[in-house]
């Protein structure tokens, strides 16, 4: 019996000769990640357990991206805790200030996470790195503390669901629409405890930015990880970024899956997840009566340069509708600079957009774009739970950058086709 890519990567991080779903394993961790919200608890736990030294200063990443630039005194204190820890332990991958980006855009961009890695992060969207053909999963702060201490963590080997995606996607349809459609089909616990493996002819041609968006939202279906087999597109992306060895894994032809789901991507229009669950998904044509107060383009799901280029294409020589706050968040300093050099920021400013520094703030209702009671936002982010972006009586609609940009112009949820 063959193995899936997820099983193979997990096994490669143990001394085991075989592996099967349901097995409890102790595995080596290549990168352990924390941020300004989750690392303070991990640091407290690390010290309480008598931790004196991290297992490897090159394999811990600490990114101050959530409530930064520091939104208040408490947030500043949390950042200070993490900064002091990073200095004390000589953490190599510590990012703040002008070097910080949204962690799940930043780590792949810098080549810190690579194909074949086993990555854990005290942030649920750690699953983003599955786009590179790594096993990456979100954990809590205590697990991060244990990994920082020992370089290892226990896992239950997940079953895998195979998605076979075929057909040519229509104009303005992206990886974001594919993953929203999938979550709509299987539900927010449709892949609970399982791995989501994305395959098929559409996936084979899908650019890295779209793969990151899809792997990013695997957690929104309850999955442990989302994963793509690395290929020439992956190779092209990591060229010049990788500074250490990496390995490409692929599922065996006779690997065992709990479920196989086929999707014809050619049939999809842009998708929108209505409040208050990422699975509450409809085609954009069914959302055209939804008026909006804010449009947010950014986040670990859709704040990459490719996303900003799409938004700029739509916003060029247009303006945000009156009383609509258009907020654009380049996910990393490099993306910010690229957007500047390519003239995208000029287009955004002419469209009356606010250009935010790289930060997770608005996505989770932290700061830099909070909603009042009764307000509605369309956002390229990943969650639309009650109160996610502000007041518990506000609403979030999840969509692609193309839909968010077109919606900003028309003041209601819209497809770019309507412009």
């Amino acid at each position, binding site marked *: 019996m063959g193995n899936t890519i997820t099983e193979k990567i997990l096994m490669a991080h143990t001394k085991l000769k075989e592996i099967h779903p349901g097995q409890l394993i102790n595995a080596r961790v290549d990168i352990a990640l924390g941020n300004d919200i989750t690392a303070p608890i991990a640091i407290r736990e690390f010290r309480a357990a008598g931790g004196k030294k991290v297992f490897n200063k090159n394999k811990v990443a600490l990114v101050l991206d959530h409530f930064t630039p520091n939104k208040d005194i408490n947030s500043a204190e949390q950042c200070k805790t993490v900064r002091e820890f990073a200095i004390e332990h000589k953490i190599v991958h510590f990012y703040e200030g002008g070097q910080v980006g949204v962690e799940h855009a930043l780590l792949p961009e810098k080549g810190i996470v690579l194909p074949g890695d086993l990555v854990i992060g005290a942030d649920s969207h750690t699953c983003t790195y599955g786009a590179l053909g790594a096993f990456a999963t979100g954990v809590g702060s205590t697990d991060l503390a244990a990994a920082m201490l020992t370089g290892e963590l226990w896992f239950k080997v997940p079953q895998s669901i195979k998605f076979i995606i075929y057909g040519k996607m229509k104009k303005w349809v992206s990886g974001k629409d594919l993953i929203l459609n999938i979550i709509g089909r299987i539900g927010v*616990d449709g892949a609970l405890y399982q791995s989501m493996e994305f395959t098929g002819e559409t996936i084979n041609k899908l650019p890295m930015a779209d793969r990151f968006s899809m792997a990013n939202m695997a957690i929104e279906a309850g999955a442990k990880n989302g994963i793509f087999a690395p290929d020439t597109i992956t190779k092209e992306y990591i060229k010049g970024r990788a500074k250490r060895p990496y390995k490409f894994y692929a599922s065996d032809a006779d690997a065992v899956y709990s479920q196989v789901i086929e999707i014809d991507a050619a049939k999809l229009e842009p998708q929108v997840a209505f409040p208050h669950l990422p699975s509450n998904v409809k085609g954009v044509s069914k959302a055209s009566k939804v008026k909006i107060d804010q449009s947010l383009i950014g986040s670990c799901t859709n704040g990459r340069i490719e996303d900003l280029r799409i938004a700029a294409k739509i916003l060029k020589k247009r303006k945000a509708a009156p009383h609509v706050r258009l907020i654009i968040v380049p996910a990393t300093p490099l993306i910010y600079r690229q957007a500047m050099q390519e003239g995208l920021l000029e287009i955004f400013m002419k469209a009356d957009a606010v250009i935010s520094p790289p930060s997770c703030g608005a996505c989770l209702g932290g700061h830099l774009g909070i909603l009042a009671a009764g307000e509605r936002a369309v956002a390229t982010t990943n969650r639309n739970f009650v109160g996610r972006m502000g007041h518990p009586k506000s609403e979030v609609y999840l969509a692609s950058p193309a839909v968010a940009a077109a919606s900003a112009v028309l003041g209601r949820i819209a497809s770019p086709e309507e412009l």
Partner: protein
Amino acid sequence: MHFSGKVWKFGDNIDTDAIIPARYLNTSDPKELALHCMEDADPDFMKKMKPGDIIIGGENFGCGSSREHAPIAIKTARISCVVAKSFARIFYRNSFNMGLPIFECRELVDNISVGQEISIDSVKGIISVGGANKTFSINPIPPFMEQLIADGGLLKHIAKK
């Protein structure tokens, strides 16, 4: 371990933003977090609940963010344990790591309403509903997990060893 208390019932897919909204995550002080426990699911929850009470959830309890602040808020609010039809993966792991006892029991959730008293014997794996002769079975917590919870969570357990 033995728990008994009055139950508070919530629906399916109670996410960690509802358990502890991100607007309060500028601190990791357990007491501060506990003040806002379940706030976006029920704004008056902390006014109504009493120490020892039990939270009942539907499917996929604790979905969403990996924030350990969620089980910390519940534990520090002195909820004795959570029983749900199913738990989201990261929340499940975090709860044990934090020392918050949680149990999966589909049948109980379908047969209980707010305000009823239940008691749980986690060693025998039995939940009984007060005033009725009804009992439900649960998977007992294995001894090493019992010890981990008794020690106050994973790292305190590691430190003790």
